[in-house]
C-alpha cells in the first residue's frame, strides 16, 4: 500500500487537474453556475421547512439554519457518492489507453465535491452572520474548531464508500440504481430533517443501546455533531408544543463513528486497489 500511495503522490498534478476540470466544467457555461448549484438545495430547504415546521409542527429556534446545518453535509455525501458511481465509466476511453493510478478518479470526484461543499458552507456562514447581526440566533462559539475534524472524518467516510462504489459499479452496473435507492432511504434514517433528540425519545424507552446503534449509521453521529458544532445554542426543541429534552454532543459515539470512517477509508482503498487493473478490460 505504501508503494501505491507513493505512485499516487507522483500523479498529484493529474489529481489537481481532474478536480479543476470538474469544477470548471460544472460552472463554465453560465456566469450564475455556482448560484444555480445552490438553487436546488435552497428550494429543498424551503419546502422541507414548510412541511416540517408549519405542517408537522416541529419547533426549533431557526429551523432553516437548523436544517441547513445537516443538509449541506448530507448533500456532499450524496453527490460525491452518486458521482463516484459513474466516474470510472465516464473515463473509459482514457482507462483503455493510458496508464495512471486508477484511484485518482474517485479521489478527484470527492475532491471536487468537497470544494463545492466548502463553497456552500461559506454561503451558510454568511447567512448565519446575517441572522446574528439583524435578528436573534446562533452565535458561533469555540466549538467551531471541531468543524475541520468533522469534515476530515466525513471525507474519510465518503472516500472509502466512493472507492467501493466506483469499483463495484464497473463489475455490476446496477450498483448505481441500488445506491440511489439506498441514499433516499438513508436520507430519512439520518437526522437531517429532524433532530436526533426525537429518535432518542422514542428509542430510549425500548432499550438505551438502540440510540447508540442509531448513531452508528453512516452519517448519523456526524450529522448530529455538525449541527451541534455549527449551531451551538439551539435552545429548546418542541414537537407540536411538547418540549423535547435536548442532548449534549456525544463525544464518545462521535469517536467510535470517526474510527469507523477511517476503517472505511482504508478498507475501500484496499478493495479498489485489488481490482483496479481489471477496469480497462471491463469498461
Amino acid at each position: 500500500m505504501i508503494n501505491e500511495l507513493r505512485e499516487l503522490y507522483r500523479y498529484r498534478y493529474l489529481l489537481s487537474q481532474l478536480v479543476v476540470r470538474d469544477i470548471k466544467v460544472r460552472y463554465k457555461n453560465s456566469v450564475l453556475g455556482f448560484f444555480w448549484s445552490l438553487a436546488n438545495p435552497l428550494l429543498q430547504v424551503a419546502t422541507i421547512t414548510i412541511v416540517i415546521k408549519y405542517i408537522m409542527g416541529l419547533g426549533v429556534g431557526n429551523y432553516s439554519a437548523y436544517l441547513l446545518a445537516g443538509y449541506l453535509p448530507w448533500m456532499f455525501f450524496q453527490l460525491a457518492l452518486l458521482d463516484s458511481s459513474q466516474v470510472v465509466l465516464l473515463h473509459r476511453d482514457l482507462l483503455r489507453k493510458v496508464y495512471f493510478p486508477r484511484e485518482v478518479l474517485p479521489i478527484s470526484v470527492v475532491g471536487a465535491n468537497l470544494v463545492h461543499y466548502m463553497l456552500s458552507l461559506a454561503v451558510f456562514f454568511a447567512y448565519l452572520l446575517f441572522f446574528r447581526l439583524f435578528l436573534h440566533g446562533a452565535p458561533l462559539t469555540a466549538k467551531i474548531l471541531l468543524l475541520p475534524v468533522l469534515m476530515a472524518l466525513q471525507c474519510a467516510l465518503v472516500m472509502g464508500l466512493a472507492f467501493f462504489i466506483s469499483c463495484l459499479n464497473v463489475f455490476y452496473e446496477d450498483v448505481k440504481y441500488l445506491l440511489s435507492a439506498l441514499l433516499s432511504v438513508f436520507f430519512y434514517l439520518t437526522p437531517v430533517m429532524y433532530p436526533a433528540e426525537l429518535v432518542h425519545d422514542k428509542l430510549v424507552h425500548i432499550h438505551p443501546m438502540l440510540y447508540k446503534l442509531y448513531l452508528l449509521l453512516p452519517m448519523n453521529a456526524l450529522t448530529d455533531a455538525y449541527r451541534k458544532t455549527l449551531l451551538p445554542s439551539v435552545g429548546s426543541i418542541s414537537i407540536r408544543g411538547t418540549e423535547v429534552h435536548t442532548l449534549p454532543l456525544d463525544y464518545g459515539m462521535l469517536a467510535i463513528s470517526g474510527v469507523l470512517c477511517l476503517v472505511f477509508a482504508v478498507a475501500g482503498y484496499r478493495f479498489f486497489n485489488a481490482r483496479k487493473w481489471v477496469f480497462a478490460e471491463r469498461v
Partner: protein
Amino acid sequence: MMNSAISLQHINKSFELLRDKHGSLKSAFLSLRRSRPRTILGLQDITLTINKGETVAIIGKNGSGKSTLLRIISRVYRPNSGSVDVNGRMSTMLALAAGFHPELTGRENIYFNGAIMGLSAADMAGNIDRIIDFSELNDFIDAPVKTYSDGMLMRLGFSIAVETDPDILLIDEVLAVGDAEFQEKCYDRIESFKQLGRTIVFVTHDLDSARRVASRAIWINAGKIAADGDTVQVIDQYLASVVHVEHATKEIG
C-alpha cells in the same frame, strides 16, 4: 541490459469472455451456478526486446492481439504471467476522443494531457509553448476543443505526445495526422525524435507509413509473434499470408 528500452519476458494474457460487457448483479448470481467463465487467449508467451532508438511497427489482422501487446507495454493491462521491463518515461499518443474534454480550451486540454502522462505543472509550463507552436493552432488555442475539426484534434494530440519529450512514444493507429503538409512535418519530427535515440512503438494497419517510419516490424498473429525483423521483409511475409488466405477462401467459395 542498459540498451533495452522495453523488454517483455514470456508474457501471457487471457481475457474473461463476458456475455454482456457490463455485468449486473443478476448475471453474477446466475453465474454462481455456471462453471468457470470461459477465457479467450490474448497473447501467448511473447518474449521480445526493443532497444533504445528503435522504431517498431506492430502489424497484424484485427483481433490478432496487436493492441493488447501495446497495452501490456503501456501497463494498461496486467499480464497473467511474465514480466514487463521499461526503461525511461513513456507516453501514449491519445486518439481523438480519449484525452480531450470538449468544453475546455485547447490550452486547458494540453495541461490535462500532460498530467495524464504523469508530468508536473512545472514540466508543462516548460513544454506548453513548443506544443502550441508545433500544432500550429495558436489562433484557436483558447477556444473550446468542441469547436475543433478532427484534423485539428489530431494535430494537438500529436504535438502533445511528441513535444513533451518522452523516452518512449507509444502510438495506437493514428499516424494520419491532418493534411499532407502537416503529415510531412510529423514525419520530420519523428525522424529527429529517432536521431535523439528515442524509441517509438506503434500499432498500424497503414503498411506504407510502417515502411516509411519503422526500422523493425513485428507481425502478431493469433496472439503470437509470427515474424519479427526488417520492416520490408516482415510486411512482405504478412502480405503473402493475407493473399494466401484470400486465395484459399476463393477456392473454397
